[in-house]
């Protein structure tokens, strides 16, 4: 069965996709280590395919975050023996994630508040 939303949500624009990449990655990794392909699949699945990254673009973001000390990586293997690079959160990453959550909540609450007034 399909989940039918009230109205069609168009694809999320690329500026917003770019801005949300870091908080999404941090929050995903907060649940445990993961690798590039799984991160993309998870975000696609959770957004119903509306949040589409050009897959390769995830890696520069991951590398940037690693250089900034937010996450760390290690080479490992999947159950089937496939080589994989696993990423996990560092302490600074947790702090950055908390900051992102705060800011996104703020933006969301301002937007929601304004919308409410509009429809009263």
């Amino acid at each position, binding site marked *: 069965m399909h989940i039918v939303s009230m109205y069609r949500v168009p694809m999320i624009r690329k500026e917003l996709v770019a801005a949300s990449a870091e908080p999404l990655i941090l929050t995903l990794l907060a649940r445990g280590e993961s690798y590039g*392909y799984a991160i993309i699949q998870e975000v696609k699945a959770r957004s119903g395919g509306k949040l589409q990254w050009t*897959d390769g673009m995830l890696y*520069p973001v991951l*590398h940037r975050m690693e*250089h900034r*000390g937010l996450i760390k990586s290690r080479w490992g293997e999947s159950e089937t023996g*496939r*080589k994989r*690079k696993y990423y996990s959160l560092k302490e*600074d990453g947790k702090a950055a994630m908390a900051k992102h959550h705060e800011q996104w909540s703020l933006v969301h609450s301002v937007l929601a508040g304004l919308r409410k007034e509009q429809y009263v």
Partner: protein
Amino acid sequence: MFDLEQAIAEWREQMLAAGIKTPVPLEELEIHLGEEIERQMKAGGDEAEAFKIAVQQIGHGKALKSEFNKADSNRMMTWTVMLIIGWLAAGFTLLYGLFRLSFDWDFISFHPQLDGATMLGVFLILVGQAGIWFLAKASRDRASRIVSLLACLSLIGFAVVNYGAMRHPPGNSGFFWAQGSGPTLVSRRHNVTVLCAGHFLDLVGATVCSPETRFNNTLKPGDLRKLMENAADALSLFRVAWRKE
């Protein structure tokens, strides 16, 4: 007939031609390509189709390269250079401090031949502070921050020890490493001036390297106020010492 391995090899060549480096990040991208192809084929696509979709999803080599460039080149260059300067300067200052404490502890008694060394010492402390400041700004991970903090603390400790020696009554050097007969105060004013200058520099360093400053990467009005307070502190100590003579 479509040859998947051949196609992947060609894709690798294209990526390399676009400037994507191997093994990192090309290997990571290739693994990703492999996983996507596998998923597409499980969903019922044939090899050629799966490969085509996977390549499209990953994106163009040129576009990827420019994104990796943003992440790597400039940032890494500045970061590395700053880090090297910082570590060198911090290490140098620490060595200087140790050397001073163990071999050259003749600060209280004024020996003319030590004058140049003293001045050099103050200069080195300044260099060290600048280095630690760079280091603190450049380093993003916890370990380097702790090390830079420790280096800072050691410098402050060095200044405090200087104070202790300076304030001890003449004839009783007090510190176990200060051997020999008591210091002769040829020119105490001179020593006090140099010590206070050194101490002031330490305070500047301590303020600039305070955790909040490093976290925000900026100097705020509050920091400047603290700096002024520290300066006033050093000045008043200087006055007291000067008057005592």
